[in-house]
């Protein structure tokens, strides 16, 4: 290990944790009855389609939890393009994410991920289902 690698060792460990977390989480998402079909349509069903998506999400969580600055994108617009997205899906997403955090991460780290995910989910949900004019119908009961 070089000196530079040694200096970055905690971040490397954390990066590996993020990768393990996301692999477990999205494996569950893809098999989930409520979320699976939405992700299958948005991302795909093959490893060739999921590998770059996982890499992108690893960058996102690295930016959010380690402040690495690797991700620059527009997750709001990415979700806006999903016609079958429902507000209640954020709760399911958070439940699966919380379980996966507990399975992979140390308890205090898992808490930090869950707290951050909860805030981002609230923000996206508010933007997609409450703030946008014309989207009121998507939250209205059938």
């Amino acid at each position, binding site marked *: 290990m070089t000196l530079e690698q040694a200096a970055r060792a905690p971040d490397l460990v954390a990066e590996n944790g993020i990768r393990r977390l996301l692999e477990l989480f999205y494996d569950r998402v893809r098999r989930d009855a409520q979320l699976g079909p939405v992700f299958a349509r948005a991302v795909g069903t093959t490893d060739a389609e999921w590998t770059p998506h996982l890499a992108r999400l690893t960058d996102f969580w690295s930016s959010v939890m380690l402040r690495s600055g690797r991700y620059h994108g527009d997750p*709001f617009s990415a979700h806006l393009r999903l016609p079958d997205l429902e507000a209640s899906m954020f709760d399911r997403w958070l439940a699966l994410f919380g379980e996966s955090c507990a399975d992979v991460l140390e308890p205090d780290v898992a808490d930090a991920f869950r707290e*951050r995910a909860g*805030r981002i989910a609230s923000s*996206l949900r508010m933007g997609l289902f409450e703030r946008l004019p014309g989207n009121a119908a998507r939250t209205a009961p059938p």
Partner: protein
Amino acid sequence: MTYVVTENCIKCKFMDCVEVCPVDCFYVGENMLVIHPDECIDCGVCEPECPAEAIVPDSDDHAAAWIERNRSFATQWPNITRKGEPPADADDWKDKPDKAALFSPEPGG
């Protein structure tokens, strides 16, 4: 909820925040930055990055006077995604009180 840039940024403009923001929601004026509240995803990454401690959640007491100004100028100023050169005297203005009167509505670059 969203994060808000407050008067501590005025004439400091260190811009560390723009490098870490995952959604590029900062906009640059002549002597401060603002956050577009509809683009911020509330991740909080920028808050501890700011050397001037200018970024606060909109629930913070210091945010109240700046929420509307962030919203308004985010639609008038250019987007900024890469850190530029801070003002030469940025450190001199750090922690100076009562900078609100020095706010410039002019766009930055």
